[in-house]
């Protein structure tokens, strides 16, 4: 087994790490950096719980090889809150019960974050489409969609 030295930015911090062959971004985040906000809910590419942003675009961390991330910027759920508290999107999920058990929430919030950066005022259909790779078993998605809509209105 070989390892590669890898330098990337995670949540604004530059990190240099040794990555073995086949290491996924999900393993890098959870096991090496202890950033356990990003979840694993399936055996690869089925549930969306591990959604993170790579250079601003949503990706599944479980299907992303760490070795491909040299020089790139990764954002996880842990990056959204600032000194004054959680982001408007996170607050909307909290106040409108867009989260129940919370396990899909980090991936769901990151997918919504990517959408709102691209399209600050998406239609309901666009929201549903953007979140369609993220499974939730608790909410029926009703309050998740409401949360994203509320956050979009707050950004107005």
């Amino acid at each position, binding site marked *: 087994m070989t390892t590669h030295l890898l330098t990337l930015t995670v949540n604004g911090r530059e990190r240099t790490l040794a990555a073995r062959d086949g290491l996924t971004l999900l393993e890098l985040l959870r096991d090496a950096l202890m950033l356990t906000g990003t979840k694993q809910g399936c055996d690869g590419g089925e*549930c969306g719980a591990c959604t993170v942003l790579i250079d601003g675009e949503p990706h599944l961390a479980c299907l992303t090889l760490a070795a491909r991330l040299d020089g790139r910027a990764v954002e996880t759920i842990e990056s959204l809150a600032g000194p004054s508290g959680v982001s408007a999107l996170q607050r909307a999920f909290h106040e409108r019960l867009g989260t129940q058990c919370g396990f899909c929430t980090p991936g769901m919030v990151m997918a919504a974050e990517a959408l709102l950066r691209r399209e600050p005022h998406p239609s309901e259909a666009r929201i549903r489409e953007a979140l369609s790779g993220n499974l939730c078993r608790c909410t029926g998605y009703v309050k998740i969609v409401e949360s994203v809509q509320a956050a979009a209105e707050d950004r107005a």
Partner: protein
Amino acid sequence: MKAQTLPARDAAPPAHPVGQRTPLIDGLDKVSGRARYTADLPFPGAWVGRIGRSLIAHGLIRSIDTAAARALPGVRAVITGADFAAPYGVIPIAQNEWPLARGKVRYRGEPLFAVAADDEAAAEAALAAVRVDIEPLPAHFDCDSARAPGAVLLHDDKAGNLERSVEHDFGDVEAGFARADRVVERRFHCAELAHAQLELNASVAQWDVGQQRLTVHSVTQVPYYLHLTLAQTLGLDTSAVRVVKPFVGGGFGHRVEPLNFEMVTAALARAAGGTVRLELTREETFLTHRARPDSDIRLRIGVTAAGEITAVDAEVVQRGGAYAGYGLVTILYAGALLHALYRVGAVRYRGWRVYTNLPPCGAMRGHGAVNVRFAFESVLDELAGELGLDPFALRRANLITPPYRTLNDLQVNSCGLPQCLDAVERASGWRERRGRLPQRPGARRGLGMACSHYVSGSAKPVHWSGEPHAVVALKLDFDGSITILSGAADIGQGSSTLLAQVVAEVLLLPMSRIRVVAADSALTPKDNGSYSSRVSFMVGNAALRAGQALREVLVEAAARSLGCRAGAVEWLGERCTSTGGERSLDFAQVVRAALADSGTLTVKGSWSTPPETQGGKFRGAAVGSTAGFSYSAQVVEVEVDDETGAVRVLQCWTAHDCGRALNPLAVEGQVQGAVWMGLGQALTEETHYHEGLPLRANFLDYRVGTAVESPPVDVTLVESLDPLGPFGAKEASEGGLHSVPPALAAAVHDAVGVRLRELPITPDRLLQALVERQREQRRSARRPPPTPAAAPGATPATGRPA
């Protein structure tokens, strides 16, 4: 300490969080990624656990040779069924499962042996090095085969491979059918489901070699049952076990019984002498199973011309899988809640729970009652059509009025079903829109409705120990904060938030003073767990009483400081006054006065179900008994593509009688989630096996709907205050599910005129039904015209099953 004339600063007004839309107290942890689930817990140096599973569906274990695996580098432990002291099962009279198979294997994927190793590669190498010799036996993958004469038995003590047969008779069924103007008999089939909670199964077990003690962190909904089962299967004293429930990523019943991997992790930790982390894959999480069984139902219902239900006759066969689990409860629930929703004349119920060589079924949201509700409401919908009655009118002809004792001795103290019916009839525009929806080829619209109910906790606990159903403790200390100590397992439903609301309401204090410590057996009182929708009702009642006990202590301390009788203290939460308000204390002063006498204050409250709610005296009578029934009515609007058989749900209107909505925001969320899970069962969800091999053990083949398919769910909360519920509250998480599949099937019938009696209603099934109808229409066009007595669509009173 002296009482002041005025408080030092303006005290907050009395708080009334009950009934307020309250975000979850742990919601910010969840949205920020701080919430730690079992797999997130930092245990540096923990060894990696892995389970080796049977490739054979049924067989005698001749030998399991672990010597080569043990000799590999980095391997810390290899265990088999021989490493356990006793079998287990959540129901004390049905314990026939070992954490790792002993003697026999009974399904493909059953855990056979397990390893702990330094890392995943070493663990995988160890699994591959174990040699297993199994002599195959004939296997039964369906109920007919398992029940056939001469079938090989899965369990030697269970003749006919029957886990449980139920025969319940209430009233004179034959007289009831004789009195009926219409009788319809139909057969139904419901596919097996999976819970599909998002969090993978995982446990971390720590064995303290010095103290010979075990600590387990796990994904459980029932830490207390897990605690008992760990002690039993590992041969430990219960005092040597500690169970901690971290954040849990959903349950829906998957985790309401102790699960094999939890005991395996513990046994590995003991064998290795340290800490073992075991995380299952999604495929293994599907294999752990315990969900809603594949069910065959034959149902006959008789009604008078006015719609009164005179008799019900039902047979239910459940394909239970290889072990008991909750099986006997599931088959009893199917009978108990089949008819208790309505006033009915007489009931005959026959139920069979069958052992098969498949992963064991168990409890799933709406436990036992969902599939029979589909059948019952579907037959009612058909009868309404035959009688020329509106489906709402047929339900209204059979409503119960509390207080009411059902035929099977269940006590109903409150019932808001009439208001639920009114609410969804109005909200959906039923009267104005039904029969007048826009129709075009490829987009046929229809409306359907159905009702349901569910228990607020089983009135008799699984372990009948004589203890109260629920205990909640409160700690008040020098800092003026109150800590709620509860064993109740918050799995996302918001139980910790609810307990904080109840205690804050009783004490009139802001929620900011209250913390909740939940589900750690070393710290919190025992609780039976989060199942059968018991927590709001039972633990809520215990929290209410704990709050009252603390308030009493505080009022007495305030009275002493104010120099008045306790009865003369006006308690306002952040402050209190003597009558007339001339002297007052703020909360900090009251706390100092109370602690001056006793130091840190701890009080507790407990609650038990009254005997009259615990059901009748016949065998199996306890199942279905509850202190409070919730009620639900549902309207579903669909659009059916009659060229492809695809069904799109446009909107659901649901009304749920939850008693007092302690947290309307959370209740809405629960009801919407229940409706959505019901739609999943109605439209897409179905496990599939080939000779015992699961073919859909992933989220691509087991289809859980996405945000694109989910419809708006309009929720009306009906608050029929229950006399026994805390502030009148009842359950909100399950009862809204049962009515969804039948309402959807009725809507499909309204749209395209065919009745689907098999779930899920997939495009291929619906298309097949449409094609068959077309063929039938062509055939009947070629036949001579029917006699008036046998008009199409009508079933004569003596009709044979469809």
